[in-house]
């Protein structure tokens, strides 16, 4: 399990408007493309260098491919990263202020303290 790689996906997609749109419309394709092309990018580094070992396990890949933010919470993905990206994906469908944010919280209502560990 790689909380780090889940976070890296959320972080990299969230900061790129084009990837946000691709993740909204074609999540499974975007996750597969990102894992193949971007997962091993060393950020904050000259291009041309890469890691060789980063990959999702099946549970992580499926959670991302199905926009399953509840599963991501359970897996210990950083809640701020998940929330920020998912607001970008779905807040636009709100029919009233904070509708998506509130329903997002409600879907997590079965989690009691302590929440899943987010340390990487």
């Amino acid at each position, binding site marked *: 399990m790689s909380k780090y790689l889940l976070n890296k996906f959320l972080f990299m997609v*969230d*900061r790129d408007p084009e990837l946000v749109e691709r993740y909204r419309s074609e999540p499974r394709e975007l996750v597969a493309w990102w894992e193949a092309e971007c997962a091993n990018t060393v950020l904050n580094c000259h291009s041309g260098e890469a890691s060789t070992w980063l990959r999702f396990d099946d549970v992580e890949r499926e959670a991302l491919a199905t926009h399953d933010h509840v599963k991501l*919470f359970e897996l210990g993905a950083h*809640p701020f990263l998940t929330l920020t990206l998912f*607001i970008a994906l779905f807040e636009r469908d709100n029919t009233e202020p904070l509708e998506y944010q509130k329903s*997002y919280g409600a879907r997590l209502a079965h*989690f009691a*303290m*302590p929440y899943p560990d987010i340390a990487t």
Partner: protein
Amino acid sequence: MATVVAVIASTHHPFYYRASTATGEDRPPFADEWASKILAFRETLTRARPDVLVMVGSDHFHQLWLDNMPQFLVGKAPSYDANWYNEEREFGLPRMLLKGQEDLSGHILRAGLDSGFDLAFSNELRIDHSITCPIITLRPEADLPIVPIYTNIFAPPLPQPKRFVQLGQAIREIVESWPSHLRVAVIGTGHLSLELGGPRQFGPHGPDPEFDQRAVEWIANGDLDGCLREVTLDSLHSPGNATHGFMDFMLMMGVAGAGVKADYVDTLDLFHTMEAYFTWYPNGAPAA
């Protein structure tokens, strides 16, 4: 030597800018009261007539990332671009450009390293809403040079709460030992109880009003002993999963000094979180 003319601690609510500038049907019902409280809070800084702002905040995974995460970082650059695409997208925050005070940055880095804080530094730092929110609320002209200081309240493992307090105490001493005639305000922002991305988020008020009440009392009274007795890295999970941002308030209590009561205290109960505003005048309150 430089003078610390004001110490200011505040929450940083990224929705303030949009709420306070909205008009007509878009203006939320709480905006007028909020803006009025901010204007009064702003006056506490204006009255101190600062020349330089030391700004304590925390990057929200914008420039600082898990592949290379500093615990405490001081910006040292002639300029700082500010706010990011996703803050523009979610909060409507404007892009900004702030001047840096490199001489004070260098002094803080040297003196910090020499007094036991292995501070990281950045010569090219784009700052985020943890620093631009208090610029917008307290000094919207954005005309004063700054020294940004980032803390890690976000990506565990985190430093202990007492380390934030110690760093605050050191910042106070270091700024006061800066060979300069300039007037410095130290401004830091954090959170009271806060939940982000968890089941208690976006409630009608902060996730733990009882914690908020105690926290405001600790800060207003400079009660570092009481605060440090109760607050641990583990205990901060319970008021809300983003409550570790309270440690930036603890840092600012360190800057203000143990047992020193704040000269100005105000709060505002909002949906999602409680806002809180504190000002100390180390040399006595300036004339209005």
